[in-house]
């Protein structure tokens, strides 16, 4: 596999007819894309299907990637659009910022998570579970910022927002994540201190 090549080299190879070079790009970004889709869609099976769909779409429209931004930024824009379409199709409600429903979903999830947490008191699990309690918009922006290493400018581009709006949304998402951790994982947070 063409692991030593950078994104642009791999893209050039794919565009010149070397379809196998695309496997290098998939291998490089599959965890990032899958984490993002999972955080938004919540179901592993659906998230994997959507993540595959993202890579297939990206391949089909690869000629439209002009290198003006990073390949990852372009790819995450496809992730964002594909997840939103999927959620709309499934008629899953994307909760508004102040919707009580977020907390109802969070509470119903919480009972299941607690049993696991007795055995798995790791930070990883707690953070992952807390993020999965957030609404898709909050989970997406936190994942993009922390896991997919996108700057606020790039996040704004992916989400089609102004930079300041993205900044405010990130701040609100972190505040809500903190509240979730304090409400549902108070003991675990104390233990980590």
């Amino acid at each position, binding site marked *: 596999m063409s692991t030593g090549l950078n994104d642009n080299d791999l893209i050039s190879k794919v565009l010149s007819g070397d379809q196998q070079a695309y496997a290098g790009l998939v291998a490089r970004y599959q965890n990032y894309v899958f984490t993002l889709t999972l955080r938004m869609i919540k179901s592993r099976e659906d998230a994997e299907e959507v993540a595959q769909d993202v890579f297939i779409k990206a391949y089909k429209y690869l*000629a439209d990637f002009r290198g003006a931004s990073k390949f990852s930024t372009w790819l995450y824009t496809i992730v964002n659009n594909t997840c939103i379409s999927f959620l709309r199709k499934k008629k899953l409600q994307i909760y508004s910022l102040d919707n009580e429903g977020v907390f109802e979903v969070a509470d119903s999830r919480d009972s299941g998570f607690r049993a696991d947490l007795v055995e798995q008191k790791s930070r990883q699990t707690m953070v992952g579970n807390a993020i999965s309690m957030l609404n898709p918009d909050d989970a997406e922006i936190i994942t993009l910022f922390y*896991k997919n290493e996108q700057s606020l400018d790039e996040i704004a581009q992916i989400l089609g927002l102004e930079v300041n709006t993205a900044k405010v949304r990130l701040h609100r998402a972190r505040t809500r994540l903190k509240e979730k951790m304090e409400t549902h994982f108070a003991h675990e947070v104390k233990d980590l201190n």
Partner: protein
Amino acid sequence: MNKEHSIEERLWEFIDGISSDEEKTVIEKLLQTDAEWKAKYSELLQINEMLSSSELEEPSMRFTKNVMEGIAKLHIAPATKSYINKKIIWGIGVFFVTMLVAILVYGFSQMDWNAGESSSFAEKLSKFDISKFFNNTWVNAFMMVNVVLGLVLLDSYFNNKRKQFRKEA
């Protein structure tokens, strides 16, 4: 509550490294002198570290294989800009600009600028009868040109399709 939110907002910007130099200096001083700021900072810093250190999720082992099977029969679509012919866009633009200029020139040439010298420009303009320029002949000519342009565009579209089909074959 608002004060707490404001502190958090400023501290997050400080942690993210997007505060201005002036703000950085102020916050650094506050962290040395104010216990509330110090406590909040260590709390947010801990969350920040947890978020940064969380691991990525992994899809199934077959993921790459599934994608490669999915794209096996696909062709990469031509770039959007390659099938938007700039010449056609320019042609349409030039046509409309020419039409506007022609109408204006004809309209102003028909005005009697010396009639009623005392009257203002607004009055002269109100006497300008636009309906006589949009009589049947004008409308017909305009529609005719549009139909011709439409046919040219259609022809160009089918030509491109034919070329694309030949290329793929």
